[in-house]
């Protein structure tokens, strides 16, 4: 079977709908139904819930922390205050990056050339990893917010050693993850373990696709 045979074989595939003339029935109502089903299909309740919870957390938490800064800074526990400030600031940055990415993805013109469009979408989609990286940076402050000045006066050396070790481990882990969560490490055990689950599939696939697009362009340029 030669190329021409294969081409005619491929082009001869038809849809039953064509023969039954159902295309003529495509009308505004059908399109509305498509839009609704598409909306329901893409709307992930858990994701939206998490996002709303994050916004609420940043809104309320931010207001509380700011109030303490402005009205009660002298009486406040500075460890709590600065830990909370860092945590809220990082969450706010992560949410902003995420929403900004969603807006950019939504605004991409799907009728542009395929490689350029896919490169844009895949780059944006895979940069969702930045959100995770930023959120991991919060790790150390979860080990410091409960510190207070009296701990320095009363606590013994042993407890401080344990506390110091925990904070150091969390800090090292946060920085290490921030540096190492990258596409090149996608096959490593720890990466697969962290990004295990259906929620991460699109991001991993986006990274894979981006890699393929780059290879595609490079191999043909060579």
């Amino acid at each position, binding site marked *: 079977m030669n*190329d021409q045979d294969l081409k005619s074989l491929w082009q001869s595939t038809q849809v039953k709908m064509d023969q039954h003339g159902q*295309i003529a029935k495509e009308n505004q109502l059908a399109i509305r139904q498509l839009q609704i089903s598409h909306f329901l299909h893409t709307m992930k309740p858990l994701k939206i819930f998490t996002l709303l919870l994050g916004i609420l957390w940043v809104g309320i938490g931010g207001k509380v922390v700011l109030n303490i800064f402005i009205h009660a800074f002298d009486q406040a526990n500075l460890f709590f205050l600065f830990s909370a400030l860092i945590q809220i600031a990082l969450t706010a940055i992560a949410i902003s990056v995420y929403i900004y990415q969603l807006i950019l993805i939504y605004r991409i013109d799907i009728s542009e050339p395929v490689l350029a469009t896919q490169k844009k979408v895949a780059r944006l989609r895979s940069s969702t990893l930045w959100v995770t990286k930023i959120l991991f940076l919060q790790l150390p402050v979860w080990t410091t917010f409960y510190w207070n000045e009296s701990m320095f006066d009363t606590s013994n050396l042993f407890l401080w050693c344990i506390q110091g070790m925990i904070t150091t481990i969390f800090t090292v882990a946060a920085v290490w993850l921030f540096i190492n969560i990258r596409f090149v490490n996608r096959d490593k055990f720890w990466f697969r373990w962290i990004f295990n689950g259906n929620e991460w599939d699109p991001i991993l696939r986006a990274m894979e*696709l981006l890699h393929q697009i780059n290879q595609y362009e490079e191999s043909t340029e060579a």
Partner: protein
Amino acid sequence: MDIKTRNRHFQNLMQHHQGILYRVALAYCSDDEDRKDLMQEMKLQVWEALPRYKEQAQISTWLYRVALNTALNFYRENKTKAKKKQLFQEDSLRVPFDDSPNREAMLQQLEQFIQELDPLDKALMVLYLEDKSQKEIADILGLSISNISTKVNRIKSRMKKRFTQFNPDPHE
């Protein structure tokens, strides 16, 4: 573009070019249900992109871009339900070839070959099988003609190898 004109353009487009959407869906989904979902998604994207269509562009080029971009998004977002199903199964959407069971078998082989390609090669393969010129393929994908030529030759030789392997010439 008012809603009536948009509806009319859409219906007209589907009347004449729905085969393009179907064949792109065929390349990206091995499962019938997935294919239907992808077809719906492509139709919706065509409908939504219609107001941005510029008359100077060839309609088929525009449609291939929308269809392939939607298929690649569909692949990336991992919306397929067929992960655990067999790669090939009875296809209720496609019209069977009454006259030649061999052609049906050949088509299955061709589909299988396309399914095994990576997502970008699939796009190229579809356009090649649709008999698009290298210039049109370059326009749709956004690569230079020389790049397309290299890639097409590579895929052609893979295809030739595959089909010789499946259907060895009895005279050889």
